[in-house]
């Protein structure tokens, strides 16, 4: 049985700094993997390696049976990997609706010549995209549809996060990478986020999710697969309870003295 995502012996060095040190893990279709670890442990670097922003110094990344190591980001996205960013990176001066339509970019088939000389074809395609985008916004838990003609930069924090997820879903990905989706959220918003992710999984049972999280309440909600990275090394992996009990993990988070206490 082949995994949807296979990260094999990936090492990423920036000069003398080892950001990722021989990381190996596999992921099945439809599963959720939570990645935890202290700040600067290399979690976001891992996302950047998977999405082709960085080419790893050593090792391979395989997605859906294809070697995607060092492939340009737009190619990786086209193959079905979508992501959100730690500090939400919306297209602030575009409307909420346009943000989602841009998210469908990989689904657009009309080329430059079609747009220039067969406007009816291009217009029909865009009209379909508008409909789909509106449907995605209606599906979202927040009041995004009602705000679809507002510039994305004027949304409230929680709605921005929702919009980023809706935009990522627009490309109909097989794997979605969420980089600290709960950052800057209060308790109620975090609960809503967990509900959002659960709903997402119910709606798209085939979709796999990798989640970088600091908030253990979110991780606890998806306890099947958790892995902890520290100083670029994978120090623990398994179910949440086991990872939490792991002395290395406690040491990484709390320091040696606390772990001994």
């Amino acid at each position: 049985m082949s995994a949807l995502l296979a990260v094999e012996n990936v090492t990423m060095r920036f000069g003398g700094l080892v950001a990722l040190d021989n990381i190996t893990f596999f992921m099945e279709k439809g599963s959720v993997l939570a990645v935890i670890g202290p700040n600067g442990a290399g979690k976001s670097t891992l996302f950047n390696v998977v999405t082709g922003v960085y080419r790893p110094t050593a090792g391979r990344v395989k997605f859906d049976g294809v070697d995607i190591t060092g492939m340009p980001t737009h190619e990786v996205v086209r193959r079905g990997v979508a992501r959100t960013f730690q500090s939400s990176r919306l297209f602030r001066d575009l409307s909420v609706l346009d943000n989602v339509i841009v998210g469908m970019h990989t689904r657009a088939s009309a080329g430059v010549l079609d747009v220039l000389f067969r406007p009816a074809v291009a217009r029909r395609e865009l009209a379909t995209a508008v409909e789909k985008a509106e449907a995605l916004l209606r599906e979202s838990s927040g009041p995004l549809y009602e705000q679809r003609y507002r510039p994305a930069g004027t949304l409230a924090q929680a709605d921005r996060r929702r919009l980023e997820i809706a935009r990522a879903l627009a490309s109909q990905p097989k794997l979605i990478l969420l980089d600290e989706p709960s950052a800057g959220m209060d308790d109620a918003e975090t609960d809503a986020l967990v509900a959002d992710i659960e709903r997402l999984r119910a709606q798209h049972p085939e979709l796999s999710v990798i989640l970088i999280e600091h908030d253990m309440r979110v991780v606890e909600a998806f306890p099947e697969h958790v892995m902890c990275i520290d100083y670029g090394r994978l120090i623990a992996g398994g179910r949440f309870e086991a990872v939490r009990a792991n002395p290395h993990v406690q040491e990484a988070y709390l320091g040696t003295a606390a772990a001994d206490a």
Partner: protein
Amino acid sequence: MNHPASRVVPRAAAAAATTILLQISGAAFVYAILSAEEGWQVVALLGLLGFGFYLLERLPWINDVVVALLARVPVVTTATAAVIVLGFPFLVGSNTYILHLLIVAQLYAVLALALNFQLGSANIPNFATGASYGIGAYVSALLAVNFNVSFWLTLPVAALAATLFGFVIGIPCMRTRDTYLALVTIAFAVVVHQLLNNFEWTGGPNGLVGIPAPTLFGHSFADPIEVFGWTLPSQANFYYLAAAVVIIAVITARRLHESHIGLAWNALRADEMAAKAQGINVAWYKVLAFAVDAFLAAFAGTIYAFYVSYISPDNFTFLVSVTIMTMVIVGGMDNIFGVIVGAFLLTILPEKLRAFSDYRLLIFGVIVIGFLMIRPEGLFPQRLRHYGVER
């Protein structure tokens, strides 16, 4: 409901009347400023214009209402515009100076629309539009002078040659961004000017002379037009030709803007990293912007060459690129109408303010800095796209 324009749903007849009235007053204003001779007339008209823009700034809903009105009766809008554009030379009569200004303004409008794909849609500061303009002019002129190729054939050939040039500068530019990208394009603009100046076969600093006037169905563009007993000076030929190219440029701009290509440009303008994460091939879209820019600029260049029948490297200096950039910034980034207004304003005003012609560059500099500080979005800011019935 979110769109302010949807508050105003005028009846079609009222909308049509207002639309016609608006466009006629716009044309009347352009005519008035073009034919103003006395200093005080120019100042008064400029005052009126300034007051208009002040009103727009204070009461932004005017803009929304006007856009809604024009979109309500598209056929009337287009028909009125067509009648105005076709009829303008009849109004001007034998005043060739006004016609000349209008031709130059229209060519600049094409150039500004070309640059708008880059500067406005994708925020690529390209200072080489003047060079593409020059390449278009030289390619077509060389073909016509040396090989007797017809104007109508040189037009696409020059456009393709310039597009190729667009790719050539576009590709190295992908390795740089922002200020450095601007520097690379400045270098290209200077290099092209120097090459035109130093090559033997481009005529060196003397340029190319004796570019033959185009002919269409046996009618030479050097001859006056005679219709229904009216005689229009020969410049009217080029006026209509330039108008046709403006229309082509506007249609191109609209189609691209209202497609996923325009959206992709806007996305990479807002956040390149996030654009990549949506599957946008950022490098390709940047190069595409260079190519489209060069294509349209070459159209303008070809018409210019055949219009003045004499070109020299000094017509295509770095300054031309700066002028085009000023037009886009003043008119409004990523707003087609705004860019055209910018081109007309900055072509006509310097002519009307001849007394200050020595300070032309200084004035342009002050205008750009002033706009970037006070109103960086230009006179007519870009508008959010609206789809379907909301429009």
